[in-house]
């Protein structure tokens, strides 16, 4: 909003430079965005918060200046020279909906001469960004900018029955507004009507049929108070944001309506371009009571942390237009119709604080409160993040929105739909982190970044029965080689087992029990031959694998990509394993290698499980796997190493031999494994 320095000076003395004034107002809560000069005038551009409609005019801003510098405020004059004929003999006003229109003040002007406004008025309007139209329309705008009350001038002779009825519009009624656009009205809208039809959209814009023209002789001036929510609805419905609606929807001052009507009457008389009939038509069916607020001295101190002198508090409140009455504990302060934002003691504390100056309030640190509680899963999360970072995965954050198509494909049923999505591709909340991760992988591959390790800690969103759940998830994305090529080594391709190693490492700090990997329950966006789910006890902790060729093809991924989904809530619920020290053995372990022929149907884990049943086995290793020449069809060759260990004595050859025999016989009888000749 534009405020002119010279216009402010009509109401308050200003000794400061424009920049000093701008700073002082900004620091009092009237944010000045810019100070400009144009046509020899200084213009302040303000950004006024929505709770302060009273400051959206020059008088209101002058009151702020007067309060900051404690100077006196000169109110605009309204010297009325009324004719003997009463206005009420020429026009009448009725309000059918007092909730939507609490007050309607009318004044009647006769024998007006419609012509361009004098230069002074035109110039001020134009500097404030308002187009000059004619002397009558300009007067209404001038007074709007001056004291903040929107008004409207009707051509009285075009009002059927010379009547104003403020009522809800009827279905089917239309109104061509001043911008020439026909509007279809409904009972949701408040209309200003004459005896026959709507003539204005209340509080938003007047109608074209009754506007002031060069031939207008008699005028009905409207100054009214409309309910903010009614005006907001109409303004939004018609996408019509006007100076008037802007003020009404923030809350106008019902006591300003007669002042504005009088001021316009006085200015019109002074210009000699019309005469003012006697009296206001003041239709005021709903008086809104104003409370008196108690401001406690103690309250100021308790909120601000500083004790202010009584005289300072009183002087600030008085300068802002309040009339505080001292009591033994503070003040009784009647509320003002111009300051609807002030209804409680705390609101007055704010007024005192901002005019006194936030910068004059000291800075202290509060005492530490209670000992802070540990954040849920904080340690578990820290550990996981450290692991992800150490494994070289770059942390990404993806948008929470995906398309409903991706939601069906990657997350199944139960996606959370948006009523007003940003776009069709973002119409649901993601129920899987895979599409977002695929997008990031794709983004990089398209930019020839082929060595990728990405990780996202995030949430997915699900609707179940009547509640929403937002489980935490860690998604890993990998592509390229397992290790980068160097000048001495070629780079091996990233494989299933590379990802398995990463997932295993990340899960290892938690007490999830032994991890079991199998291919059950894998959704088909994975390549079913190269993926697995991970369980620990009863919990499903993760699944991972290569993204299916179908998906990769559709997304034009030019190299294999791998994804892991780790259900963090499940993992964290296992808790971090507390280390427990075991004594170190005094003697070294001994190992034996077995060259085995294993049926293809036997998975490695069954071999290790069988080995685990043998006494003194410390650990096992798969040293080499071979298929091909000299290995019978339907079998693979496994070089299997077993380490035996006792805590405090060496194992004799005999006991190792006997252990080994037992192992081989178990492998043979349970799993059909033969020793390779």
């Amino acid at each position, binding site marked *: 909003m534009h405020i002119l320095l010279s216009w402010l000076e009509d109401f308050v003395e200003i000794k400061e430079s424009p920049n000093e004034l701008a700073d002082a107002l*900004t620091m009092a*809560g009237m944010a000045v965005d810019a100070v400009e000069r144009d046509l020899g005038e200084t213009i302040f551009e303000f950004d006024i918060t929505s709770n302060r409609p009273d400051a959206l005019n020059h008088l209101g801003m002058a009151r702020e200046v007067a309060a900051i510098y404690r100077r006196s405020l000169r109110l605009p004059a309204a010297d009325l020279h009324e004719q003997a004929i009463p206005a009420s003999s020429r026009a009448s006003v009725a309000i059918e909906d007092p909730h939507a229109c609490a007050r309607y003040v009318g004044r009647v002007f006769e024998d007006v001469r419609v012509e361009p406004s004098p230069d002074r008025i035109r110039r001020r309007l134009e500097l404030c960004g308002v187009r000059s139209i004619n002397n009558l329309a300009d007067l209404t705008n001038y007074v709007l900018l001056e004291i903040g009350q929107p008004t409207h001038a009707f051509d009285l002779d075009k009002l059927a029955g010379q009547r104003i009825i403020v009522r809800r519009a009827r279905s089917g009624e239309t109104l061509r507004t001043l911008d020439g656009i026909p509007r279809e009205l409904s009972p949701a809208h408040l209309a200003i009507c004459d005896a026959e039809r709507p003539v204005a959209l209340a509080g938003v814009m007047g109608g074209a049929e009754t506007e002031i023209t060069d031939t207008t002789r008699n005028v009905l001036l409207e100054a009214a108070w409309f309910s903010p929510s009614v005006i907001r609805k109409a303004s939004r419905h018609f996408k019509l944001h006007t100076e008037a609606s802007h003020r009404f929807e923030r809350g106008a001052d019902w006591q300003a309506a007669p002042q504005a009507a009088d001021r316009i009457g006085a200015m019109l008389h002074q210009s000699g371009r019309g005469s003012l009939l006697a009296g206001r038509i003041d239709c005021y069916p709903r008086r809104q009571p104003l409370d008196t607020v108690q401001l406690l001295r103690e309250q100021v101190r308790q*909120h601000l942390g500083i004790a202010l002198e009584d005289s300072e508090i009183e002087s600030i409140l008085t300068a802002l237009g309040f009339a505080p009455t001292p009591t033994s504990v503070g003040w009784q302060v009647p509320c003002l119709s111009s300051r609807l934002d002030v209804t409680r003691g705390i609101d007055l504390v704010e007024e005192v604080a901002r005019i006194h100056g936030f910068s004059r309030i000291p800075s202290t640190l*509060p005492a530490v409160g209670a000992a802070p509680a540990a954040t849920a899963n904080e340690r578990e999360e820290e550990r996981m993040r450290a692991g992800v970072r150490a494994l070289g995965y*770059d942390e990404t954050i993806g*948008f929470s929105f995906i398309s409903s198509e991706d939601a069906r494909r990657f997350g199944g049923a139960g996606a959370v739909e948006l009523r007003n999505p940003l776009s069709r591709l973002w119409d649901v909340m993601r129920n899987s982190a895979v599409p977002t991760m695929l997008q990031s992988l794709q983004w990089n591959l398209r930019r020839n*970044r082929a060595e990728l*390790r990405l990780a996202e800690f995030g949430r997915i969103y699900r609707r179940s029965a009547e509640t929403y759940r937002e489980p935490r998830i860690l998604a890993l994305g990998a592509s390229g080689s397992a290790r980068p090529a160097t000048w001495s080594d070629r780079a091996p391709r990233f494989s299933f087992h590379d990802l398995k190693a990463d997932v295993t490492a990340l899960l290892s700090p938690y007490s999830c029990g032994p991890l079991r990997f199998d291919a059950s329950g894998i959704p088909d966006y994975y390549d079913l031959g190269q993926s697995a789910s991970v369980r620990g006890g009863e919990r499903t902790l993760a699944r991972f694998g290569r993204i299916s060729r179908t998906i990769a093809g559709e997304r034009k991924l030019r190299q294999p990509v791998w994804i892991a989904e780790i259900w963090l809530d499940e993992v964290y619920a296992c808790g971090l394993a507390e280390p427990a020290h075991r004594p170190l053995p005094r003697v070294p372990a001994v190992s034996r290698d077995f060259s085995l022929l294993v049926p293809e149907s036997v998975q490695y884990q069954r071999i290790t499980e069988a080995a685990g049943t043998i006494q003194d086995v410390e650990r096992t290793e798969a040293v080499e796997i071979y298929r091909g020449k000299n290995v019978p069809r339907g079998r693979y060759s496994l070089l299997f190493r077993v380490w035996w260990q006792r805590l405090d004595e060496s194992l004799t050859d005999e006991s190792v031999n006997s252990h080994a025999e037992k192992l081989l016989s178990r492998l043979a009888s349970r799993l059909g494994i033969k020793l390779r000749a």
Partner: protein
Amino acid sequence: MSIEDKTRLPILGLMADGNTPEGLYESLREAFESEVGAASAAGLESLRNRWLGRRSGLLAAANENWLKAAPRELKPVVGRLQNALRRHSDAALKAAVKAAAAPARRTSEVDPTLPGPARPFGAVHPVRRALEDVLRIFRPLGYNVVEGPEIETFFYNFEALNFPPDHPAVDEMDTLFLKDGMLLRTHTSPCQVRVMESSQPPLRCVVHGKVYRNDTPDATHSPMFHQLEMFAVDETITFADLKGTLEHFVRNFFGPGTRARFRPSYFPFTEPSAEVDITCPFCSGSGCRICKHTGFIEVLGCGMIDPEVLRHSGLDPERYRGFAAGFGLDRFAMLKYGIDDILLMYQGDTRFLAQFR
């Protein structure tokens, strides 16, 4: 005067020129050290003659002209200095001869300038980095860290926070709604109410997480971003505490020279409300493109928790007061690391992420 000339002069004359015995021997020692340091293996033998030669060596000359010529009362001092220097130069020469005789060091078999196989740490996302920096400042002040649901009710997101029923932020243009009237939280403040409902003061809390607005993405807007909010509720919390806490915070986050400026503003859930500007971290307040030549950058909103919000949360506003402050972590990260496009945060581009390893 050369060192040779010096050793030829009697000590009393030198002392009359302002030298002390200690100074004379020190200059001798320095000259010796620098010659030993510069000598090649072959040069060491002639160096020995020049310095330690029995008749014509420099130390012999010093012995003659300084020690022997010294008056009796000076003799003990000069004698000690002469002996010390002789012992030192003997040992140093021996060591130098030994070092010269040692075989040459093996030259490197590897090229240490070739890279090893790269094993970079993963990047910590700039938003996460900023978060961790913030938490490191607030944890020692006794703040708990809380997250909260991103899918919220209208009540927690607006009503409980004292939004008037017709506040523009409630309009659909700003809020993303679900089909059943639930919504995506537009700020982290609902969590304030949730915490106050479930726990009793004193409270010191940091809430952080994703928030959503129905904004078309561009360099400064993203429909999803991260907010962080801190609040304290107690019987004695004041606006002065709010100022002190935030000043401490911005100094620690943006650098010790950072000043904060509190401007009155309006938020439905705080009263009084303020916006905080900090001295521009790019130009230290002297004015630049980023702060639009004002020297200040607006970084956060704050205020005393409105009594209505305390009441909605089941706390007695006559007894308790609180302050709250909130800001965008993305914006903080952008200011701290000089990122000029918020959308970089959400693309997963490794050229961007790798800068934060």
